[in-house]
C-alpha cells in the first residue's frame, strides 16, 4: 500500500469518529441555541434568534459561574503545584521501601472524581464532619463547609487538591528521577549547598515538566464538575462553575435552547484555549 493511502486509512476514521461524537453535537448546540426549546413542552418550540445569547450574557449568574471557574483554576493550580512539588521532593528520596510509598502517596489519582467527591462529602457533612470535630477540638471552631460562600469554595479546592496534587507530584517525580545526576554533582563539587543546588540546578531543570503538568491540570480544571456536584447535590449551597451552570440550567431545568447557547460559548472558549495550550507540546512531537 502506498504510504499516502495508509495514512489516510488510519487517520481519517479516527478523526471522523471524534468529530461524530464530539464535534457534531456542537453543531447541534448551535442549532438548538437559536430556539426556545424545552423538552417538557416541545409544542412551544420556536425560533428566537440570538435571544438566548443575549439573556445569557446579561445574566449575572453566568458571569459568576465564569468567574468561579477562573478562580477555581487559579487557586487549584497554585495549591496543587506547591503540594505536588513537596510530594515529588520527599518521594525522590532513595531508601528501602520508597517504591511502596511512591505508589501509596499517589493513590488518589485514579479514583473516580465522583467517588472522591462522595468521600469528602462525608468529611464535610454537617453534623458528622470529622474535620469539624478535629477543628473544634484543636482550635475551638467549626466550619459550615456545605453552606455556600467562601467555606464551600475552600472545600472544593481541598477536594481537588487532595486528588490532583499527587498528579503533579507524580509528573514532577518522574522528572526528578529522569534528571541526569551530573549537573547536581558538578554543582556540589563547585561547593554549592543543597538549597542552592535546588534553586540553581534542580528547579530550572524541571521547568519543562512543570509546564506540562500545569497545562494538563489547567485544561482539566476548565471542565471541573464532579466534586462540585458531590458537594452541591442534595442540598448543598450553590457554587457554580460553567459545567455546573450548563448542567443545572440546561438539563435539570430542561431548557435545552438556553443550555445549548451556554454550551456554545463554553465549547468555543474551551476549544480555543485547549488548542493554544496543547500546541505548547510541539517540541514533544519529535
Amino acid at each position, binding site marked *: 500500500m502506498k504510504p499516502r493511502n495508509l495514512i489516510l486509512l488510519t487517520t481519517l476514521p479516527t478523526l471522523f469518529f471524534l468529530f461524530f461524537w464530539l464535534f457534531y453535537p456542537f453543531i447541534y448546540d448551535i442549532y438548538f441555541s437559536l430556539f426556545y426549546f424545552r423538552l417538557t413542552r416541545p409544542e412551544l418550540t420556536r425560533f428566537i434568534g440570538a435571544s438566548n445569547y443575549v439573556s445569557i450574557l446579561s445574566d449575572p449568574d453566568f458571569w459568576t459561574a465564569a468567574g468561579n471557574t477562573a478562580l477555581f483554576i487559579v487557586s487549584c493550580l497554585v495549591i496543587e503545584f506547591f503540594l505536588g512539588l513537596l510530594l515529588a521532593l520527599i518521594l525522590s528520596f532513595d531508601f528501602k521501601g520508597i517504591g511502596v510509598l511512591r505508589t*501509596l502517596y499517589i493513590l488518589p489519582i485514579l479514583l473516580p472524581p465522583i467517588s472522591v467527591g462522595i468521600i469528602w462529602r462525608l468529611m464535610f457533612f454537617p453534623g458528622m464532619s470529622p474535620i469539624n470535630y478535629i477543628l473544634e477540638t484543636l482550635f475551638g471552631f467549626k466550619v459550615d463547609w456545605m453552606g455556600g460562600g467562601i467555606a464551600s469554595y475552600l472545600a472544593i479546592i481541598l477536594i481537588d487538591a487532595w486528588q490532583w496534587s499527587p498528579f503533579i507530584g507524580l509528573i514532577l517525580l518522574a522528572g526528578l528521577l529522569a534528571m541526569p545526576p551530573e549537573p547536581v554533582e558538578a554543582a556540589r563539587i563547585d561547593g554549592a549547598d543543597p538549597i542552592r543546588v535546588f534553586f540553581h540546578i534542580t528547579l530550572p531543570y524541571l521547568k519543562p515538566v512543570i509546564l506540562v503538568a500545569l497545562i494538563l491540570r489547567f485544561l482539566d480544571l476548565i471542565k471541573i464538575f464532579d466534586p462540585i456536584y458531590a458537594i452541591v447535590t442534595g442540598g448543598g449551597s450553590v457554587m457554580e462553575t460553567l459545567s455546573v451552570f450548563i448542567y443545572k440550567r440546561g438539563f435539570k431545568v430542561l431548557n435545552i435552547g438556553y443550555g445549548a447557547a451556554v454550551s456554545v460559548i463554553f465549547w468555543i472558549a474551551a476549544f480555543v484555549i485547549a488548542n493554544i495550550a496543547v500546541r505548547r507540546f510541539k517540541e514533544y512531537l519529535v
Partner: protein
Amino acid sequence: MVKKTTILAVVAFIILGIWTFFPLYYAFITAFKSRIEITYWPPTFIPKEFTVHYWIIVWFDRPTLAYYRNTVIASVLSVIISLAFGIPTAYTCARFNFRNRADVLFTILTFRFLPPAAVVIPLYIFMREARLLDTPIGLAFIYGAINLPIVVWVLRSYIIDIPPELEESYMIDGYSRFRAFTDITLPLIKPGLIAVSLLILALSWGEFLFAAVLTTSPMGKTLPVGISEYMGGEWGYEWNKIMAATFYGILPLIIIFLAIRKHLARGLTFGIVR
C-alpha cells in the same frame, strides 16, 4: 545538616500521609459503623460496633449488580473501541512524517479537553433518537471517543521508542509491513498497550457527567451514577451504605492502579513525560 533534612522529610511524610489517607480511612471505617453510630457526635474514629451488614445489604436494596454490569460493559467496550481506532492512527503518526501530522495530532488532543457538559445536551437528544439512552453501549461509544486521544498519543510515544529499523529489517527479511507490525512492534509495545488499556478502562469506569445525563432508568445506570444517587432522598444519611458501595466501586481501580503504576505518569501526560 543531614539530620535536619531527614527530620524535615519524616515530618513531611507524616503530614502528607495523614492528608492522603485520613479521608480514605475514615470513609472505609464508616462503612463498618452501625446506623446509629454514624450520627454520633463526637464522631468515632474506630467503629464501636463492627458490622459487615451494610457491605452485604448494598447489593440488595439497590440494583448495584446492574450498575456493576453496566459499568463493566461500558468501560470494556470503550477500551475495545478506542484501541480499534487508536492503534492504527498511533502507528502511522509515529512512523510517517506526513505534512499535516502535527495538525492531526493536536486536533485529536484538543478533543480530550473539550468540556463534556458542552456537548451533553445534543448527545442526549441523539441517544434518545437512536434508542441508546439507558444503555451501556451508547456510553461506550462516547467513552471510546473521549479516550481516543489518550490512546493515540500514549501509544504513539511507545511506538516511537521502538526503532523503525526493526520493522524495516523484518520487511527486508521478507515480510509485509502488516506482519512487521504484528510480529515486531505489537509484542514490543505490549506493556504500554496493556497499561493504556487499563488506564482508559479506569477513566471510563469512573466517568460521571455523561453517565448521569444519558442513563435515567434504575437498571441502566452505571456505578458512579448509582452511588451518587444514594446521597439524595431517604438514603441521604446512610453513610455506611454509601461508603460500602463507594469502596466496591473503587476496588477494581485500586487493582488497576497497582498494575499500571510504572506507566501512570506517561499515560496521564499523553506520553510526554516518560
